[in-house]
Structures are given as C-alpha cells and as structure tokens.
C-alpha cells in the first residue's frame, strides 16, 4: 500500500467518522456554528461530502450520479452518511491504483468555466478540503462545549493497529 493510498484511506475514515458524529447530534446542535468557519454543522458536513462527490466525479471523468449529495438539495444527514460511505469505498479502490498523478484532468464548473490540473493537484485538494472542513467542525464543537470526535491520522492508526 502506497503512502498516497494511506493518506486517501485516512481521509475517508475521518470524514465518515465526523459524518456519523454530526448525524447523531440532536437537530438543535446541527445548527450550531462559530465565527470564522463556513457555517452551521449541517451546512459544513453537506458541503464536505458534496465536494467529495465532485472530486470523485472529476477523477472518474464522469458527471456526478443522480443521487449525489448536493448543497442545494440535500438536507437528510443519514443520506449524507450513507453516501459518504459509498464514496469511501470508491476512493479505497481508487487509492489502490495505479494512479498517474501527472495525468491532466479538466474540471468543468457549473458556470461553464474550466480548470486544468494534474491528478496529483486534485488529490492534494481533496485531502486539503476534507481536513479543512473537518477542522472547522472541530472548532464549532469546541466553541459550543461539545467534545469533538478524535479523527487524527494517529487516532486512525491506533484503530488499525499501525500505531501503538
């Protein structure tokens, strides 16, 4: 297993863990936020998973499926958790490779504009994006007196028995 596959698997584990944590919160806590972050717990989680959909689609070179999580339409966090797990299964297969990190990907935005980047940059972006929004959720929890889930790579390693 490559170091990149490990980083991708960790990202999936952490997002799934945070998603399950958020979905289990009472409705009143899903609307919490704190200054300097993206928005509420619910909006941040939906954006986090909706973006995973878009990154996976860009890597596959296919449009997002009809049941994709979207910021504009998704409200059910149980659906977000289930879809995140499905995406994690896809990312696990993707991570096994082979991955050509130099392959150029063209990504088309909703407004018709395009971006071109090597696959390695897209991977760096989705790892960054996942960490960024999980950290924002951690700040929201901390600011509101909620003990956040432990989702570092060392926590993951402990669960896997790859750290002791």
């Amino acid at each position: 297993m490559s170091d990149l596959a490990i980083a991708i698997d960790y990202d999936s584990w952490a997002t799934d863990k945070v998603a399950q944590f958020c979905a289990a919160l009472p409705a009143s806590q899903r609307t919490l936020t704190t200054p300097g972050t993206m928005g509420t717990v619910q909006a941040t989680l939906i954006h986090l998973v909706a973006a995973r959909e878009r990154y996976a689609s860009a890597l596959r070179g296919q449009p997002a499926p009809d049941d994709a999580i979207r910021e504009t339409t998704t409200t059910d966090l149980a659906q977000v958790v289930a879809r995140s797990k499905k995406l994690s299964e896809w990312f696990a297969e993707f991570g096994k490779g082979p991955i050509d990190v130099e392959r150029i990907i063209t990504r088309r935005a909703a407004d018709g504009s395009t971006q071109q980047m090597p696959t390695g940059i897209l991977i760096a972006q989705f790892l960054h994006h996942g960490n960024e929004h999980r950290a924002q959720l951690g700040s929201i929890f901390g600011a509101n007196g909620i003990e956040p889930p432990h989702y570092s790579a060392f926590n993951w390693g402990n669960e896997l028995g790859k750290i002791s």
Partner: protein
Amino acid sequence: MAGPLDQVLRHNSWATLSLLEFCRSLDPEALELSATGTYGTLYGTLQHLVGGEQWYISLLTGEWLGGRPVRRDERRSLDDLIAVATAVGQRSVTVAPVEDAQRRVDLGGGEWATAGIILAQLVHHGNEHRTQATTILGANGIDPPSLGAWAYGIATGIAQGEMR
C-alpha cells in the same frame, strides 16, 4: 524521483509557508488573536504547526531541521519559524519517495507508528492547524489567504483556470 504523495507534500509545505508569510505581514499584535474552539492564539497555532511538522520529519529521518526543536516554552520569531518550515517542507518531499510506508518508526516510550501513518498525520496536522489559523483570522475580521491546492496549483503554474 517524485513519489505519489509528492504534490500533497509540496502543497502542504507551500500552504504553511504562505500562511506564515501572510502572518508576518500583519501587525505583531495580531499574533495574539484567538477564536473560540481553536487551538489557541494565532502565534501559538503557528508555533505548534511548525513544531509538529519538524517532529514528524525527525521521526522519519532522525534530523531536527532548523537546529533545535520548536518548543512551546521558547518564543521564536516568524522568520525563524519560516526557516524551519522551509527546511522541513523540502525534507518531507525528499524523504517520502524513499520511505517504506509499512516501516515501524519508534515514537519513544515504547510506542511506534508506521511511516505511512506519520506522513498521513503530517498532512492532516498541517491542514488542521492552518484551518484553525484561518478561522482565527476570519473571526477577527481579517480576510485569510487562500491555502487550498487549487491556489497552490495556480501559484506554481501547474494548474490553469479560475479559482472558484
């Protein structure tokens, strides 16, 4: 030869240095800003960010880059932190492709982690604390720098298109 994690580590280093340089341009008093739910002050977060990465690389290489460990009880200038972060970032890129991701690395005190987990932790840790720093900036009315991999790709000329 570049490894599969190459762009992820290059982005990590670029983002940390971009944040440090942004913070160096602020009034020195801004380094004492904080926000609820984050790690601490802006300076304390930057110090921990750099010190953590320095430690992770020392685990993999046995080298304390930057001369001596960055510790909480010693206030070092941002110029100094930038010098340490530069050395650590460059070393992360060279060590990853020659590292065995499954190798057990001694953490001290009888504990160990695989090298792959340490690299995943390095990436997670950087993104996590950079996000806390940008949360502090945003919560205090300072527009934070763009630190995503899109921004990195555009800044380095390896991605094209408009950032959205």
